[in-house]
């Protein structure tokens, strides 16, 4: 029973992290119909930058954290400006998708070129006094960080998309691009902002994930690809669905790792993806969108 509860806690905290990065993915998807494969690259960028700033440059944790978040925000803007903007208006799915694949490969290659093949460990930036170890359950500070960080981010996102004019215009653009443009929504800004916020969310989840599992560019890129099962389960464009899907996929993964075999853990989400596509391809909250001919 304790083992099961422990797995439950691990799974839900992992699921929250998947959920946040899937949220970033959905922002990009809704603003341009783009599948972003560079997600894992941005996650590992955030994690490695945080590592470099806090260990190699020996900056205080709070400063390193803030600088990482803001620089990943800027990275999102740069990627959008340099690579996505030129092909923004083309209706070619293949071209758009391949460009993000190229970006993913570039980021991964660059990071493994700089940091090599070893596994790094991030500093324990929250003191152990915060851990809750009761009834043989191990709730480390990172689990709490994952929970708390995700919930805080979700609340911020909710406020942003409900009350701020920029968030509302992003929502409007996702709902109906043509009508939104006619009403004066600035398309370029919406697109740039969705990439920037997405990169920020990615970096956040990458940092916490890197702290839990250790930093390795391959494993972080692989974790970035696990958002595809998450978003399909959630329904491809629903934000609440992303979080719910993240939690379910995280739980599935941890339970499979705990009860079946450790090596099966990494491919459980993909088996789930194939099964979801077979049974209910629209996911929880997706609806079959009408397509224009």
């Amino acid at each position, binding site marked *: 029973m304790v083992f099961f509860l422990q797995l439950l806690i691990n799974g839900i905290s992992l699921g929250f992290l998947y959920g946040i990065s899937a949220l970033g993915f959905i922002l990009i998807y809704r603003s341009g119909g783009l599948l972003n494969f560079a997600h894992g690259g941005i996650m590992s960028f955030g994690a490695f930058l945080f590592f470099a700033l806090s260990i190699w440059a020996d900056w205080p944790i709070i400063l390193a954290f803030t600088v990482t978040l803001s620089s990943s925000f800027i990275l999102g803007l740069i990627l959008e400006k340099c690579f996505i903007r030129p092909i923004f208006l083309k209706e070619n799915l293949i071209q758009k998708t391949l460009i993000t694949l190229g970006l993913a490969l*570039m980021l991964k290659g660059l990071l493994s070129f700089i940091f090599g093949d070893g596994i790094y460990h991030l500093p324990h930036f929250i003191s152990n006094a915060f851990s809750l170890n009761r009834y043989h359950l191990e709730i480390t500070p990172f689990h709490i960080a994952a929970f708390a960080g995700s919930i805080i981010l979700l609340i911020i996102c909710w406020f942003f998309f409900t009350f701020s004019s920029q968030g509302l215009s992003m929502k409007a653009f996702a709902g109906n691009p043509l009508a939104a443009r006619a009403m004066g929504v600035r398309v370029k800004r919406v697109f740039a902002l969705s990439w920037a916020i997405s990169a920020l969310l990615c970096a956040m989840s990458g940092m916490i994930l890197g702290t839990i599992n250790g930093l390795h560019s391959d494993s972080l890129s692989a974790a970035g690809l696990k958002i595809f099962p998450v978003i399909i389960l959630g329904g491809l464009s629903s934000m609440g669905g992303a979080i719910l899907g993240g939690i379910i996929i995280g739980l599935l993964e941890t339970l499979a790792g705990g009860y079946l075999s450790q090596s099966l853990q990494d491919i459980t989400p993909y088996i789930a993806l194939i099964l979801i596509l077979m049974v209910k391809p629209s996911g929880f909250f997706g609806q079959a969108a009408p397509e224009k001919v």
Partner: protein
Amino acid sequence: MRHIKQAHPKKQFLPPFHTCGRFKTSYQEELNRFQTPFGRRFTVISIICLFGLMPFISNDYFLHLLNTICIYAIVAMGLNILTGYTGQLSLGHGAFFGIGAYTGALLAAKAGLPFFMVIPIAGIVALMVGAIFALPSVRLRPIYLPMATLAGQFIVEYILLHWVSLTGGSKGLAVPVPTFAGLNLGGNLSLFYITAVCLLLLMWLTDNLLRSKIGRAFLAIRQNERAASAMGITVFPHKLLAFAISSFFAGVAGALFAYSTTTITPTFFNLTLSIEFLAVIIIGGIGSISGSMVGALVIVSLNEILTFFTGYFMDAGMIIMPLYEFILGLTIVLFMVFEPEGLARIWRNIKRGLKQWPFL
């Protein structure tokens, strides 16, 4: 019986500066594969050069490279049918290539089948495995296929690595040399003949397929699925067919690759390999069969040049993979931003420029 007077064709008067261009006067001419006699002659001469001249002017290492180029070109051709002509994206071709390689290796090593049976069977097995992953997603919007094949890539990689009793796990699997009627066909030279014949055969098939009714249906699906289905094309079977053909090509190439490398390990058939195959068709030109060859040439030589220079300047083997990934990614991104139709388009532009010079 009325006598029909045969209209005597008037002798045409051709002015000394008549209008340029070729004018087709029958539908048969339109259907000709080679529009000019030069094209036919050029093809025949290049095939003779490939088989007669190439093996004798190149050494063993170069022949091995040539084999690798042919193998990459086969996969790229298949991928081009799927991505370039049908407009569907696959991220799992590295895995289907691996399925072909393992099937070929197992059939040759354990069942002892001859190579001319191993190669097509490997293709068919890869086709069936590919269909399992494609079947649920092909019926949906095109956006789902890359995700499903991505899942397929990881699942196949896992199976190859963990089904130790069959595949030998991470230790790899040794492939026996192909034999025919007691002759040993192990060397790079005889393998070159096998791969080149396969390449030409598949090229001929692809070229004719794409000019047939099916090929035109693929093109219609690429342009607009809804419109294609409104015109009476059954979209789902055609998309599945395109996927099946392209995984068949990957499987055939995989079996050839198994013969060519003699030992295969599961880690080779990873996601980067899938993206490498995509890079081949991006560089060569999406939707161009001859572009696939050029792209394969570029990618294989890039790989070799990088290996050479890394060995020359630094004694670090670790550095090459990240560097290669970075350059591959950069190439994909630059081609997609500046020349989405690849070298094929650049070549067309040069040709047109030369033909119409100085009126550009």
